[in-house]
């Protein structure tokens, strides 16, 4: 009688660097660090820039030497390329870290409950930071987002449906137009609404008019994302609907759109994130106020990016500090939109 014994076999990874192989690498990095410090101490090259530059030069050349001894010239070139790419990647991610860090560090100072409950109606930039807030700007931004979404959502959704469901003769052309629209600079959208409405009629800047250029900027983002999402809906679902005798309208309304619902929500959120921080168009169309304005059609309005802009333009210490607080709140809004969009998008992908 033979007994079968099951032995658990661990997958082998012969290509993995063993600790013994890794030692020379670390040694070289250590040497590079020492060489950097020595050179900075001896020569007139000083500062963070010198450290970073020299460490890159020494680290790369030492590693290259190592691979050249072991594996020849081609491998040394490969090491050099790898180290350049790594440096390029780090250079891209450094600004993100710096941006987030500065915003949080500087913006946190002015943060407090009063920021969310007070306005700038009776406060000036020279007043202490414990007074005044940006309630009016938050309400203005919410209004702008709401109105821009209400205007742009139907247009974008229907355009996306045309591109995915009808695929008519014009779809190549429409696709082309949507692409072109996504390149319209925000300042042009603002100037356009000014030329078209404020210059032609007696209307003055208001929340509604401020939301129009934002809607223009939002349409291409929402259209393109919705189009991608609708393309993911399996064709079998559409065919099943049609086979049951439903009209195309019924199929789209009761099968395709509900199937793509969470993706469409992602599309809207991405569109909102795109416009929430737009400043340039508001300068032409929003009017301005320091108080809460509940009426979207009459009177000026404020918004978070506009608030930051005014603080920055003011240039005084108080103004810039308030701008940092404003940008922190704006960043929190944008980041939470981004995360929500991700969560919705991932949930869809998992299904």
């Amino acid at each position, binding site marked *: 009688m033979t007994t079968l014994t099951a032995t658990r076999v661990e997958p082998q990874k012969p290509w993995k660097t063993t600790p013994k192989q890794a030692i020379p690498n670390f040694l070289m990095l250590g040497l590079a660090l020492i060489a950097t410090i020595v050179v900075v101490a001896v020569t007139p090259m000083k500062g963070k820039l010198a450290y970073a530059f020299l460490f890159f030069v020494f680290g790369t050349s030492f590693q290259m030497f190592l691979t050249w001894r072991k594996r020849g010239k081609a491998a040394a070139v490969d090491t050099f390329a790898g180290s350049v790419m790594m440096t*390029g*990647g780090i250079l*891209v991610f450094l600004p*993100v870290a710096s941006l987030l860090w500065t915003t949080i560090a500087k913006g946190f100072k002015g943060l407090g409950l009063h920021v969310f409950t007070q306005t700038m109606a009776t406060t000036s930039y020279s007043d202490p930071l414990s007074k005044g807030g940006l309630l009016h700007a938050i309400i203005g931004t919410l209004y702008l987002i709401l109105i821009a979404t209400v205007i742009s959502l139907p247009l974008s959704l229907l*355009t996306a449906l*045309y591109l995915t469901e009808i695929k008519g003769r014009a779809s190549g052309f429409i696709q082309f137009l949507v692409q072109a629209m996504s390149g319209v*600079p925000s300042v042009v959208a603002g100037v356009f609404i000014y030329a078209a409405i404020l210059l032609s009629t007696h209307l003055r800047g208001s929340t509604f008019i401020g939301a129009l250029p934002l809607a223009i900027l939002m349409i291409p983002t929402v259209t393109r994302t919705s189009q991608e999402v609708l393309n993911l809906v399996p064709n079998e679902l559409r065919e099943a609907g049609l086979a049951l005798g439903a009209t195309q309208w019924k199929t789209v309304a009761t099968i395709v759109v509900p199937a793509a619902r969470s993706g469409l929500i992602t599309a809207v959120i991405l569109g909102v994130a795109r416009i929430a921080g737009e*400043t340039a168009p508001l300068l032409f169309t929003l009017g301005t106020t320091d108080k809460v304005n509940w009426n979207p059609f009459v009177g000026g309005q404020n918004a978070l990016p506009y608030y930051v802009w005014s603080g920055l333009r003011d240039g005084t210490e108080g103004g810039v500090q308030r701008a940092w607080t404003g940008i922190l709140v*704006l960043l929190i809004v944008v980041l939470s939109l981004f995360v929500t969009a991700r969560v919705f998008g991932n949930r869809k992908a998992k299904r």
Partner: protein
Amino acid sequence: MSSTLVNRPATPEPREITTKPRPSDIFFRGVLTTMSLSSLLILTLIGLFLSFRGYQAFKTQGFHFLTAYDWNASTDAGQKDVFGLGAMIIGTLVISTVALLIGVPLSVLTALFLTFYAPEKIKKSLITIVDLMASFPSILYGLWGFIVLMPMAEYWAKLIHKYLGWIPVFSVPQPAFTRSPFIAGLVLAIMIIPIVTSVSREIFGQTPLDRIQAAYALGATRWAMIKAVVLPFGASGVVGGAMLGLGRALGETVAVYSVLNIVFKANWHVLYGFGGNIASMIVQKWGEASLSESKALLAAGFVLFVMTLLVNLLANFIVRRTIKSGR
């Protein structure tokens, strides 16, 4: 038995099978087609209104509007306005060139790093960070550029001037390095990196796997593989991505306004402390513009609109051709 057969209800009339759409579908398709033309309507309206309102400037200035370097709004009724956008067109091109020269190589390196070098574990989060960069509002870049980047960049500018000052582009008439086109270009470079990176990454990711494996099988190192397979395959895609980035750089307003000392003069010296671009100039002049000047600014907006439209169309053409041909 037979009687039940006789009493069986008659077979129902066969339904008419037709390809003719039903009324509700005709209506549905009509609504969708009409609505999808809204983008055409908006683009046409933008072009029409800006050119119509700026017509006066085009008419009085003629071709000089694009080539002349002066921008003087007359204060007296008798004097003639002089509006020439030339200096700002040059400024726009200078800043965008700086942005592309810095941003595109970095983006290509990052895209290659993300596609072929980054460990699988952190790859996804790194890609998320690049996407996150794209969603930062431009005023954040402006504020950060002004407060954090400017002091550093000024130091870098001095270094470049010290060692490379003999190159005409890097020379300066006077040692004024603050708020220069170089700094504005640097901020713009950071702003276009996410777009260029994600387009390049997408195209690098489409490199046929069999060719990559063939290169490795022939004994290529990773870099040799990239040089021989990935870069020739993705080159035109990178160009397209760079054009998309250029489209964004041309129209950037707030970030440039925050870091650049906007003076209405042509400035080729990238390290020297003044410059401008069309978009930020519109914002700067808007506040105290007279009616005729604001019309000239609308005309400037029209010029910017046409410029970005052309660049974006070219970019999309290149990117699409690459993706379609899938060489």
